[in-house]
């Protein structure tokens, strides 16, 4: 399969098999790679890094709103409401010191 085909099919297979009711097993499947599918993971990595990212970073950093506010600065400001939270989820990662302005 090509990287594009992998990205189109495997996430759907992953979702179908994700919820077993065993939170530990489910999280393990999430955070540790299935050794049997390493080549597929690498294809996805390659697609995300080499094909998507150059397009994404340009769109993210160069976009602004009508009032001149950069998209990234708008996205930094919290906005809490009952709207648009159907998909609100995600990991909490403690970032370590890195390059800053």
């Amino acid at each position, binding site marked *: 399969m090509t990287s594009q085909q992998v990205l189109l099919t495997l996430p759907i297979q992953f979702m179908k098999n994700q919820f077993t009711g065993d939170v530990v097993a489910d999280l393990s499947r999430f955070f540790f790679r299935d050794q049997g599918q390493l080549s597929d993971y690498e294809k996805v990595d390659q697609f995300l890094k080499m094909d998507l990212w150059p397009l994404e970073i340009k769109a993210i950093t160069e976009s602004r709103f009508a009032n001149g506010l950069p998209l990234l*600065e708008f996205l930094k400001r*919290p906005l809490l409401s009952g709207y648009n*939270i159907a998909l609100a989820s995600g990991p909490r990662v403690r970032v370590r010191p890195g390059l800053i*302005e």
Partner: protein
Amino acid sequence: MLLAINVAWSATTEMPIQLEVDRAFALILKTQIGKSICRDILGADANALTLYLGISPARAAEISQGCVGSEASEWVYPSSPADIRKLTIQAAKPRRYRLVHSDEAFPIESWTDAISNETTILTHKKPISFSRLVQTLAHETAVYFDSKSHPLHPGAQELPHWQGLIATEAGKMNPLLAVSNPLQAHTLTYLRALQVEFAIMHELVSAGLVAAPNDLSDEYLLHLVSERCTVTCIEQLIINTRAIYMPFGFPLIAFLRTTEKPLVKLYPLFRPVGPKSNG
């Protein structure tokens, strides 16, 4: 693979947490932002506190009565419990928390699953302190109600903040699609939630209600939440955090769905969004 994982998880313990969750939310909802979330999003409704925050019914009734007498937070956009369209497998499934203590170091500290409405808090080596739990729940609450997390979702159109504001779209990709990629989206959600978490914790620490967690004075985190962290700083954060997320980027993408189809199906459809060529 499974054998390796089973070994890694052999020293895993799941601990009861509801009493501590109730205590933590009793504090969080005393803060200005907490009161605003309780009143302006959840309508100070005890059932909503149970459903969306996971507070036990008995404590929710008591806590809801205190969600008054504070100014609206600039970070809260008033809505009502009826506006919430939470995606769950089982309708109206109350929020739940799991505290998992493991010898294995996971790459994250907590995880909110949008579909099961469940938050898993992972601790490594030692049990979580109460102030750390308050901090984690403040963060997860901000993640839960984060309304900028997926601008492609139809629900985003309910928010005036997004409408008609995009002036330019650079490059060959719609920027809303670019920031919806979980490799970027989770970092931006984290950054927004960090500010809410820090505001809540600083208020509670100043009032002497909880001990200050160590990272509340971390210079880099303080820089991230400050106004000094602008485009270059945020861009660098995204780049740094992508390296953390990349090993599980594939399942992260699997979790990200639009209302009707996986986002991944949108990728082949991306088109240049600039002026159309005459050719």
